[in-house]
């Protein structure tokens, strides 16, 4: 029985619309450590709806400029890369981000807010990595990390009321283990499959797949996997979860081998993440239910 649910889910991934060419190019470029803003401009310039949308945002009330911005170069440098990538992805995967996460008892907007908060936190955490980790890649991985939930949510209807007590009784170590038991795979694996189906460049698919178990990631992506893992944990601690699974995930203690972060650093990161998250969310005008 489990096998057939798993097959259904794998089939459902293949029915998700592909992301637009400019979205996948932007993700590819953003992931390249040597890229500059000019590379992003070159992609956006060729996508008229995207150009229009970026100009609309940069001229919106949130930025309160005196003079109207009409050049895309200027718009991109004002918005910054995070905002552009965030906006493009939000748009490309809007049908997933708009999921009400019924199987998690969530609400429409939760997934977007949680992923955005994780993205902001991961980028901050990247600065504390012992080896160099690309902040932009960390941000993108954060934005994508829980998208698998949008696909499996439909198969998890009415399960939170069973899963939560089962975790409390020690039947499952965490929420992902419950997903595994019920579906034969968890949201991280589904996210990995989705990212591969979208042909996103490595390390994005792998990091999505290992975001709850960075200790098991291949060594070359471990530092990034830990960065995204901690970004996710910080987002969960803020209360900005995705419904019933919210804090039922483990912190992998070996992060200390990869990330140099004391209590005071963590407290500062929490403040900065809240401020930056609010800034981006308000600018993008993609508000969740309530906050």
């Amino acid at each position, binding site marked *: 029985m489990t096998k057939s649910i798993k097959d259904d889910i794998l089939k459902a991934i293949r029915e998700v619309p592909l992301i637009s060419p400019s979205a996948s190019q932007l993700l590819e470029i953003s992931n390249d450590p040597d890229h500059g803003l000019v590379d992003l401009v070159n992609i956006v310039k060729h996508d008229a709806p995207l150009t229009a949308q970026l100009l609309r945002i940069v001229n919106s009330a949130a930025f309160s400029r005196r003079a109207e911005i009409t050049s895309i170069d200027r718009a991109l440098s004002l918005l910054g890369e995070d905002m552009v990538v965030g906006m493009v992805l939000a748009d490309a995967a809007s049908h997933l981000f708009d999921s009400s996460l019924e199987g*998690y*008892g969530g609400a429409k907007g939760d997934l977007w807010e949680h992923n955005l908060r994780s993205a902001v936190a991961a980028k901050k955490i990247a600065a504390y990595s012992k080896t160099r980790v690309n902040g932009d890649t960390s941000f993108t991985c954060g934005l994508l990390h829980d998208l698998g939930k949008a696909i499996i949510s439909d198969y998890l209807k009415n399960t939170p009321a069973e899963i939560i007590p089962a975790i409390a009784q020690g039947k499952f170590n965490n929420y992902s283990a419950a997903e595994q038991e019920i579906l034969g795979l968890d949201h991280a694996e589904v996210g990995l499959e989705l990212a591969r189906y979208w042909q996103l460049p490595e390390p994005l698919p792998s990091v999505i797949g290992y975001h709850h178990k960075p200790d098991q990631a291949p060594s070359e992506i471990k530092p990034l996997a830990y960065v995204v893992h901690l970004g996710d944990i910080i987002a969960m*601690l*803020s209360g900005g*979860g995705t*419904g019933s699974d919210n804090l039922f995930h483990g912190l992998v203690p070996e992060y200390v081998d990869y990330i140099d972060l004391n209590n005071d650093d963590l407290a500062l990161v929490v403040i900065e993440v809240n401020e930056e998250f609010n800034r981006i969310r308000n600018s993008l005008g993609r508000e969740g239910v309530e906050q």
Partner: protein
Amino acid sequence: MANLVVGVGDFAVSNDPEDIIKTFALGSCVAIIFLHKTSRTVGMVHVALPESRIKPEKAVTMPGYFADTGIPAILKAMNAKGCVTGGNNMIIKLAGGASVMDTNNTFNIGKRNILSIKKILWSLGMGPTTEDLGGTFSRTVTVPVKTGKITLSCPGKKDWPL
């Protein structure tokens, strides 16, 4: 009637029986709810971190962000509404301070918040009468000023009283 939504680091005080004070999705943050019996005033502060020394300039604009500045700030606001804070006239309740499953407690901001809040309350001769703290789930807190009856909620769970 107004819904007073208390964001992270904010606080609200009301004695209008039509108001409902609410804070959403407390993770490691802690909501401290003050119920002033004789004046039927309710105060709520949403504390994110224990100590303001980490970023004093934040405490200037948002004293509620930290336990050590948030508690004096809300008590002052309640005094300004005519609550005499002292004696047995104040009921204090705490909710939040959750954590992820963190065996070594290195990310346990919730626990540090709770400890700091209690120490400060004790130093003022106060203490919580009721609390719903810790665990690995978030809490949304709703208090209608009229009744002062606090409801907690969390996705996937039935609502419960505090």
